[in-house]
């Protein structure tokens, strides 16, 4: 939807919300339904599940957190695994902030904007923001991202109670939405041979490392080894 430069910020935010509801909010919302049931399985209250969607706002971190608790991993290992799995937010946020930044903007507003950076708001933001007048981008982005977050919070809440009641094929299907959604989002973002190598090596190495390295550190080792090899492959193909 196009945004006119003379629109009020409310109208621009609404346009962002409408764009989110046209599909992206539903994808991420369904993707986080499984989080609710994972929280349910480890005996945490529904408020923790919903809060995790709002304050963490990163599917992989949430899955790692609840699934690691279920697996009995050490707290330090959980925090480190979550930290490494979230490293991607550094380059992602660095990439999107220039589109949202304006002179005189407070650091607090930028910290707030950065909080919404996750797969969906990021890929869609990079795609849609350049077409929007600079002074309206923050309102648009907040309208878009908050809509995604609200739909996802409801999805997490529903998943907490619903998954146990569903026939097993459908419950399994909802839980499988998370890995399928991650893999599809990753495939959508592939740009060159190095990206493909990182994806394939990560997929292959993680289960191998899981077999030989315990305590929740297996994922970090797999990511570092696979990522470094992929980085070298990507660089080897680029003209110097």
């Amino acid at each position, binding site marked *: 939807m196009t945004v006119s430069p003379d629109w009020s910020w409310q109208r621009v935010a609404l346009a962002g919300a409408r764009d989110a509801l046209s599909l992206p909010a539903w994808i991420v919302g369904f993707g986080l339904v499984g989080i609710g049931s994972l929280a349910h399985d480890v005996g*945490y209250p529904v408020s923790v599940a919903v*809060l995790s969607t709002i304050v963490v706002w990163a599917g992989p971190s949430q899955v790692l957190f609840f699934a690691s608790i279920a697996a009995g991993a050490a707290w330090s290992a959980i925090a480190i695994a979550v*930290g490494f799995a979230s490293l991607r937010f550094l380059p992602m946020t660095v990439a999107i902030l220039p589109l949202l930044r304006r002179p005189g903007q407070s650091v607090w507003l930028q910290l707030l904007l950065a909080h919404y950076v996750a797969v969906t708001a990021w890929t869609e933001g990079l795609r849609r923001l350049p077409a929007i007048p600079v002074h309206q981008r923050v309102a648009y982005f907040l309208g878009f991202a908050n809509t995604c977050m609200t739909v996802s919070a409801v999805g997490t809440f529903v998943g907490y109670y619903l998954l146990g009641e569903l026939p*097993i094929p459908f419950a399994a299907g909802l839980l499988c939405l998370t890995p399928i959604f991650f893999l599809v989002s*990753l495939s959508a973002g592939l740009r060159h041979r190095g990206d493909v190598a990182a994806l394939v090596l990560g997929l292959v190495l993680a*289960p191998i490392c899981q077999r030989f390295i315990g305590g929740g550190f297996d994922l970090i080792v797999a990511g570092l080894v696979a990522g470094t090899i992929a980085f070298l492959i990507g660089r080897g193909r680029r003209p110097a």
Partner: protein
Amino acid sequence: MTPPIAALDGPLWPYLALLLFAALPTEIWRWLAVLFARGLDPDSPLLDWVRAVATALLAGIVAKLIVAPPGVLAQAPLLVRIAALAASVAVMALGRRQMMLAVLAGEAVLIGGVWLTGAG
């Protein structure tokens, strides 16, 4: 799971654990990006490496969720879980990156597979 310090155990522990071990290690990178974004070149080799590690980590999470799945997903046979991922990737590769279609294809294979194998 019990907290590292026994005195922290109680109804508030899940909230504290969420903030300390999930929210903080996730949010820290977004904060660092805001504070250091000015000095970083988005095309620098360092960020290329970070991006590659991040992609591999996400792929690793996907593999872990499929090989050692949480909850009732464990009742779906491994072959069905892998076939579901393969179907999604195939649609992405063939279907000009139609994300919704790819997700639906993977889901159809998983739900159909569980149904047909009678795993439920």
